[in-house]
């Protein structure tokens, strides 16, 4: 076994290579390995691990796809990255990710993988693949239970799309190695491995040590990732320790083979004990970052049901309307009016976190033809009733001016419940259904244009006339309203 002495860095007594796999084809002084032991944890090829990136709060997660030592004695790992949903937030489109979902990087662009020093590794991470791909063996119960994250989709760094399809090879590694390992192979490997006795789970003292090191470690991350992150500087301002870890608090305790690091953050260098305290504090007083909000909506998984719930969660889509009902019941909902209509929900969330210092869940109400096109409205759900009331009174007493001279308006004037509509005005049964032939009934249910010689046509034209009338009314009303607003603005400019 090689016990190399690093020339570049100092010798690390915590490091030990495992089984040697091969030497480099072009450069014989480079040796490749199948596993290594670092700080009492054994890493095998295609294991996943946490990495520390300087200047970023969140750790990065990557898969070790190659491990080797250069002639200079530098111990390197080639890492293929996973993206957190946060990282690719602007490319999610209509896909709603789970809080514990990751996306495998793929594509030809640089940034899919990197070569890193071994000491940028923070700890092992268990990631399970839930893809329906035929090449992917379904994960075992034990794996599922221990999994901290799952992935079922790839993110192409070049095309910037999320896809369910896995290419045959990513970064020169065949795709089978990214899927779950086959059990027998795993067992064999374990037998063959002639590494020194290894603790595959870790003690608290080790964790503590790891966190103390956090600040010093550096790591090359995917440039793409950096770039993706660049436009969300606010993320860095608020160390996102809390929400994520809190929601996983239970898991920490129940996971027997858990991976060592929850989420190391360079902004947070508190020792572990402090951290543990943090784990037990309620969510409400931490992390005002809107991007993190999804985490605390999912209660921590209970051990027994976990294997199913992960799979279920992978399919389920979070339902805003359910949330809305809940928020109305607990009086956490505020209706924001007079927003610039083109604001997006995320922008409103950011606005709230900056102006009101509150973490909220916001949704712009989509415009339609029976709404004022000059006034944007948003439903904003606050964390607590108190926060909602505070925001309301601040908006009423003071005045929050938005960029183009729009004072924001908060109101709680909305119906308690919008039920389901039973019947639709204007659709009627022309004759008794019972007397109608089946053919006719079909005609009603399928869409069609009316024939001019039918009585329905006449009635439809009446409806059209009504529509035209109301359209005209709306235009008139909006004109008047625009005038009223303009008068105020004009006098404003005159004085200002």
């Amino acid at each position, binding site marked *: 076994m090689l016990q190399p002495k690093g020339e570049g860095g100092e010798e690390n007594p915590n490091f030990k290579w495992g089984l040697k796999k091969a030497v480099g084809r072009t450069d014989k002084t480079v040796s490749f390995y199948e596993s290594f032991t670092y700080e009492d944890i054994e890493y095998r090829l295609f294991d996943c691990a946490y990495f520390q990136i300087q200047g970023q709060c969140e750790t990065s997660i990557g898969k070790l796809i190659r491990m080797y030592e250069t002639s200079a004695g530098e111990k390197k790992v080639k890492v293929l990255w996973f993206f957190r949903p946060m990282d690719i937030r602007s*490319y999610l*489109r209509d896909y709603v990710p789970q809080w514990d979902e990751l996306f495998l990087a793929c594509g030809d662009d640089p940034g899919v993988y990197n070569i890193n020093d071994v000491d940028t590794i923070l700890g092992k991470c268990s990631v399970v693949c839930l893809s329906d791909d035929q090449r992917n063996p379904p994960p075992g119960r034990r794996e599922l239970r221990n999994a901290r994250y799952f992935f079922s989709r790839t993110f192409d760094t070049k095309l910037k799309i999320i896809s369910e399809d896995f290419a045959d090879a990513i970064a020169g590694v065949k795709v089978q190695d990214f899927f779950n390992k086959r059990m027998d192979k795993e067992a064999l490997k374990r037998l063959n491995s002639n590494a020194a006795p290894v603790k595959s789970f870790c003690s608290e003292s080790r964790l503590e040590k790891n966190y103390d090191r956090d600040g010093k470690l550096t790591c090359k991350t995917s440039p793409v990732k950096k*770039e993706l992150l660049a436009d969300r500087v606010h993320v860095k301002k608020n160390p996102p320790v809390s929400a994520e870890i809190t929601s996983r608090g239970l898991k920490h305790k129940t996971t027997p083979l858990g991976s060592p690091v929850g989420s190391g953050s360079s902004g947070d260098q508190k020792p572990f004990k402090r951290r543990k305290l943090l784990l037990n504090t309620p969510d409400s007083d931490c992390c005002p970052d809107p991007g993190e909000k999804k985490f605390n909506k999912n209660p921590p998984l209970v051990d027994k049901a976990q294997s199913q719930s992960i799979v279920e969660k992978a399919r389920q889509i979070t339902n*805003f*309307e359910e949330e*809305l009902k809940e928020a109305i019941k607990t009086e956490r909902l505020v209706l924001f*009016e*007079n927003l610039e209509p*083109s604001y*997006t929900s*995320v922008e409103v969330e950011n606005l709230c976190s900056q102006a009101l210092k509150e973490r909220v869940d916001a949704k712009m*109400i*989509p*415009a*339609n*033809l*029976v*709404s*004022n*096109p000059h*006034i*944007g409205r948003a439903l904003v759900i606050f964390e607590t009733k108190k926060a909602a009331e505070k925001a309301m009174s601040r908006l009423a007493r*003071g*005045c*929050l*001016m938005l960029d183009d*001279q729009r*004072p924001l*308006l908060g109101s709680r004037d*909305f*119906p308690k419940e919008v039920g389901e509509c039973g019947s*639709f*005005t*204007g*659709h*009627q049964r*022309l*004759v008794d259904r019972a007397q109608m032939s089946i053919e006719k009934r079909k005609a*009603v*249910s399928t*869409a069609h*244009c*009316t024939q001019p010689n039918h*009585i*329905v*046509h006449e*009635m*439809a*034209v*009446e*409806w*059209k006339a009504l529509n035209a009338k*109301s359209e005209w009314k709306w235009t008139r009303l909006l004109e008047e*309203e625009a005038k*009223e*607003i303009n008068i*105020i603005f004009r006098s*404003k400019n005159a*004085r*200002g």
Partner: protein
Amino acid sequence: MTNREEEEAQYESFLSKVRRTVYVDELTPLASKSVVESAFSQFGTVKEVIFLPNYLGPKELPACVLVEMESEQKAKAVIETVSQFPFMVAGMPRPVRASAARPNMFSDRPKKPGRVIQFRWMDPSDPEFDKAQRVKRIVKKHSAEAAFMIRKQLEEAEELAKQQAETVTTHHKKFDLIDKLTVEGVAQKLAGRYNMKCGPSHR
């Protein structure tokens, strides 16, 4: 800088999606996604159907739906046909209404590239404060006006529906009567009784 370009490209692709999309309202809330899809697939391939949520009621409001077609031309064709001829979806006789979609109708729209929202808090000592409060009041008034308009519209629709229902029932009765006269031979019987000639059947 590349980030900005990406944003712009993304926004551009969103806008082209908007141009492909038709906004349809005056639709029964009972219509399902598949009904809408099959209704508009008569014009071309329907790529996506998005129902706009009715968060604030009233529940009687007609449903609004965004229908994404395969191309801009197809979308235009749909709008043209539907606004020219009364087009029924899942019920008669109230037709649906179609118009071009606007970006603000999409709830998952991307943000405008490069925009940063500016804001500032005003306190009562601010010279503009009074004006701002006035704008607030006016906006409040405007949303009340909009709510009133919507209610009024619903009432009008209700009225028209009632009136039409009446017309239909009277028509139905009339036709029923004529039906009975001709098919069941009531007219002939009466004619025979009063010794009169009746209709083409006797000729």
